[in-house]
């Protein structure tokens, strides 16, 4: 396991297509005295096929960055480009289309639709996607082929999170954004979920960004970005990614 300290932007890891181009990105919440600088001048480039782990304490701005990348929110200032698209000036409708076509989300609390089965939760999304996977195929990819017709309430936390992953990847997104995907899970199930993410990244070449405050997960990343106070503290590059199954915490 080799950690290489490097200057933040230029030394981008692999030579895939540049997916995100971020410069001086700033996001403020609130007004007047109560203003909070959630993002305070972030510079980043993220490339196709990378697996990025975003580390940082609570309130450091990780989730805010993820929301900007995912087109859930507009930044206050700065540059934010997805390929050739300027996300800072995109309309609500354009952002909706962007999310629909390019982004897959995975959240800490899975956020499945409780009234739909595993298969239906995935199919709900593939229904509106252009070139989706078969929902069954997506669920098999996360080893849930046997639990297709179970409702969320009938699945364990790890299983629910894997349904969420299947839902996110089924539309073959260019970007997979994961906010504390193992935050609510124990070690064993957490590892299974990470293995699924790893597999997706490897097999589909999707740029995957994983937010966590669990430093152990840094080992499985191509690059590790450390965040605090709304700024990038450091970007580290791993020469070799450790397999998720070898992680321990």
């Amino acid at each position, binding site marked *: 396991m080799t950690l290489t300290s490097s200057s933040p932007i230029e030394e981008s890891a692999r030579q895939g297509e540049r997916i995100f181009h971020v410069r001086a990105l700033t996001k403020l919440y609130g007004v007047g005295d109560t203003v909070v600088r959630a993002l305070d001048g972030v510079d980043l480039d993220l490339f196709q096929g990378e697996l990025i782990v975003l580390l940082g304490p609570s309130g450091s701005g990780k989730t805010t960055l993820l*929301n900007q990348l995912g087109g*859930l929110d507009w930044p206050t200032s700065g540059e934010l480009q997805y390929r050739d698209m300027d996300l800072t000036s995109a309309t609500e409708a354009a952002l*909706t289309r962007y999310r629909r076509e390019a982004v897959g989300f995975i959240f800490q609390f*899975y*956020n*499945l*639709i409780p*009234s*739909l089965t595993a298969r239906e939760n995935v199919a709900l999304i593939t229904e509106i996607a252009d070139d989706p996977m078969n929902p069954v195929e997506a669920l098999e990819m996360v080893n849930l082929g046997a639990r297709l017709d179970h409702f969320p309430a009938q699945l364990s936390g790890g299983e629910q999170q894997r349904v969420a992953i299947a839902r996110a990847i089924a539309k073959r997104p260019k970007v997979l954004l994961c906010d504390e995907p193992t935050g609510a899970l124990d070690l064993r199930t957490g590892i299974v979920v990470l293995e699924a993410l790893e597999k997706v990244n490897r097999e589909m070449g999707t740029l995957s960004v994983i937010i966590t405050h669990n430093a152990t997960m840094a080992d499985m990343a191509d690059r590790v970005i450390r965040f605090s106070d709304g700024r990038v503290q450091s970007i580290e590059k791993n020469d070799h990614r450790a397999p998720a199954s070898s992680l321990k915490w």
Partner: protein
Amino acid sequence: MLSYLDRKVVRDLSRMKGQAIAVSLVMACGLAMLTMSRSLIFSLERTRAEYYQENRFAHIFAHLKRAPNDVRERVAKIPGIAGVQTSIKVQVTLDMPGLDEPASGMVLSLPDRGEQELNRLFLREGRWLEQGSRGEVLVGEAFAKANSLRPGDSLAMLLNGRRQSFNIAGIVLSPEYIFESRPGAALPDNKSYGIFWMPYEEVAKAFDLYGGFNYLTAMLAPEGKEKAVISEIDQVLQQYGGLGAFGRGDHPSHIRVSDEIRVLQTLSIGFPLVFLSVAAFMTNAVLSRLLTLQREQIAILKAFGFSNREIVLHFLKFAFAMVIAGVSVGTVGGALLGNRLVRMYEMFFRFPELHFRFDKSALLWALLVSTGAAMIGVFSSVRRAAALPPAEAMRPEPPANYKPALIERSGIAHLFSHSFRIAVRNLERRPMQAVFTVAGLALATAILIIPSTFRDSVKQILGVQWDIVNRDDMTVGMMEPASIKVHDNLKHLPGVVQVEPFRTAAVRIRFGNRSRQLGIRGLPRNRIHTRVVDGSLHEIVLPPEGLVVSDKLAEILGAKVGDEVIVEVLQGKRMTRTVRLIALAEDLAGIGAYMDMQGLNRFLEEGDIINGASFTIDTAHRSQFLRALKDIPTISWVAIKETLRDNFRKTTAASINLLQSIYMIFASIVAFGVVYNNARISLAERSRELATLRVVGFSQREVGAVLVTELVILAGMALPLGLLMGTGFATAIIKMVNTETVRLPLVLTSSNYAIATLTVTIASVLSAANVLRSLKNIDLVSALKAPE
């Protein structure tokens, strides 16, 4: 195939089916009322229009003393007239063997040859009269049914004082007698009054009218103007003793059907409006709650690229599902109720066939109105769903911003329990939700007031009309006016305790350009039987001069007390004079005009003349009295109070009671639905909070107290408001059911209010109990887990 988002609609709906059903049912109640009344209006209007058209019902009607038959040609030449029918119309006395009292009726002549040009009959049973036949008669259905008469039976009549026996050839209906009743009588008595048809020659000869006629009806050409034609007809008939022609608008049978349609129109707007407002409130509450619960789901859908339009549509589908259910149940229910009520109309109205006809436009209306109501209900909540920024929605809702309730800040906080504080703070934090619940409950209470008001008001009519206004047992009318001396003979009939004579005269009362034909009734001084009372039921003393009319008549004429109205007498010397209106009488059925009897006789320039009398009878001698009456040939009709009251109970009161029970059921559904819905929402929204209370050591009872306290506070605000609103609704609806036929007095009793309060309270208690039961099932552990 159902899209996956639609599957979510179906599954979510099935999970909240209790509430969805409650909303749909309330909607269905309103829509059932709407489709029922619209369809009944449609049925009555169409059936009547077709009947009129097919049987050529006339537009103009005129009674006269006698005119030679060739006058018919002169009338027919009046521009604007498309057809004329002349006939003889006379009053007869009947001798019904099975009937104690004398029965009477109207005989109309049929042309000796060919069919009538206008007002053609419909043969229900038996056959038509044979040409040139004698001693045969056609009988109107209402009388035939009431007396179980069939073709082939015989019937004795006194024609111009001569008793003759007739063979019944057929049972018929006439567009002129859809409502068969003695002229001037507000209530029908089909057992003792009937309509008959005979060949012209036979009637004319019996009444010395051969070669002439005393009744004329005319049909307007499409371009004919009713008013102009009437005045031309009046001019022609004046020299023949014309009593003044009138249009359909003054035709008694036509008015009755129109009045019924008007009442239905009122009901078809008023009730559905109230029900659908409640449904709108409930839809709003249910959807708001759904949105709150699905905050994170909405965020997910947005994060995955569902557009605002898709999400708004998704939530509108919930409302639409409730609308579809409501419309289906409502229209089917309305059709069933309508079918039932149409049979009720068969008691009053005689049509060849009165089928329930479903008004398809009602379905459209139902869909439009309920969709509108639902849309109003969901608009704000759905807009909230669209406005929710996805990033924000992803996080669980921040803790609500509570503060001490107003009532606590007033410095008496220490007096309240924790449960009370939580309840009050919660209500204060969500004032709109509290307002909606209070509004829904208040409307439910208000709806309950209306049907009871109808019932009480019918009771009042029965009481006022027959215990306060008319205190006699029987009223008798005479063929021709007679000298006051007849009074003495009447006094000596068996069983008579008290007899009071009266005098009536056919007149047209005119004020400005409005007029009405009716009979002025002259009443003796110092009378006991017939009282004329004002709005507060105080007797009005009839001075020697001046006229008292029904409040309703004054309203029709646009006249008020002190005005001089023009009275045209339509009989005798036919003078026209002005008379001062000295008071308005509160009568509840028909329209009337009253004068002092001597004053009326002076006015008519006739001597002391009477043409009827009212009696108080010793019940022990009742049948003797009636038999004696039968032997007096000059008696033309008898009205027995008990019979009328009975008929009223069986017909009008029965139908109003039927409607009342329908409304009562509907109102209870609303009350239950609103409370149930509110308690469910309260429980669902706060299951975590309530579970937390349980976990930290509150007993189930204490937690229940929080919910119950909220309900009690809401109900406490809603009930008085509802009683007030109900009073308003009832007043408005009763005012609208104000026709020439019948006027319902506004009667608001404490028992009415008590029933409404009790029903809502019971519904609330049942709902609360239902919800408290599910409090037991709150899963403490899962409720405390992270939201999913």
